[in-house]
């Protein structure tokens, strides 16, 4: 039974993101309900556990979307649809990517990073966020995303690019980035 097998690890993940026991429990319950309804669509490409975590991550992002309580990326990023503004007229970085105080190999263990990550993702415009979630969380291919969103491959890459640009900028703005020009690499 999924609940006995995966309930606790899903609950840990949810609790670490939303901090409140009751909300975490609700998200886990919603995850199992959604999984049971969609089990015919479980393709076996990933493990059952990865699939269940994918559903939970969707739920966590939805939860953040509905409950805006902290800094919003949309407030920080003047025009989230205009990623051209990240570059100057010569095509160089308008605001150079800062050094992140996070060990790249241990990003999965960094709770603060993961919290910011999900909050920022919930602030990315819906369509770009959907493409990103399908690609990076659900592991769909470009072709599968194109079918699901009814778009061309080029459009898909544009959406993914936009999501990644906004996400990394948001993470930087809410505290990961430290400009250390003397210690760049």
């Amino acid at each position: 039974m999924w609940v006995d097998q995966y309930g606790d690890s899903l609950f840990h993940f949810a609790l670490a993101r939303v901090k409140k026991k009751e909300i975490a429990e609700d998200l886990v319950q919603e995850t199992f309900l959604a999984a049971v309804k969609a089990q015919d669509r479980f393709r076996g490409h990933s493990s059952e556990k990865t699939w269940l975590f994918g559903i939970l991550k969707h739920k966590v992002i939805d939860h953040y979307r509905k409950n805006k309580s902290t800094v919003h990326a949309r407030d920080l990023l003047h025009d989230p649809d205009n990623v051209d503004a990240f570059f100057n007229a010569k095509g160089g970085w308008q605001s150079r990517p800062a050094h992140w105080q996070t060990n790249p190999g241990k990003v999965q263990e960094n709770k603060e990073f993961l919290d910011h990550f999900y909050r920022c993702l919930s602030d990315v415009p819906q369509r770009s966020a959907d493409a990103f979630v399908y690609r990076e969380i659900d592991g769909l291919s470009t072709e599968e995303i194109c079918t699901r969103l009814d778009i061309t491959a080029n459009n898909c890459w544009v959406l993914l690019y936009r999501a990644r640009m906004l996400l990394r900028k948001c993470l930087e703005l809410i505290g990961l980035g430290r400009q250390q020009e003397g210690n760049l690499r």
Partner: protein
Amino acid sequence: MKHWMFRCNDVSQKVSQSLDASLPFHHRMAVRMHLLMCRYCARFRQQLIMLRKASRHTDDEPSMDETTATLSNETKERIKKALRVIP
């Protein structure tokens, strides 16, 4: 656009695309050359890889407070009951 003259805005797009599809050989080479010379684009690429790792992360190491915070039997039963009523 001459591909050996990629600018940072072009490279950032190509770097993102390279995570989803295979780039043509000459684009791949041009991006690689640019990344060798531009620390900011190299940093950008590493950050996109970190976003990917964060996305695929599943198991949290429970912190001290969370170690004891498991789903109670009562909650598990409630969820199982809810699942049983799904047709």
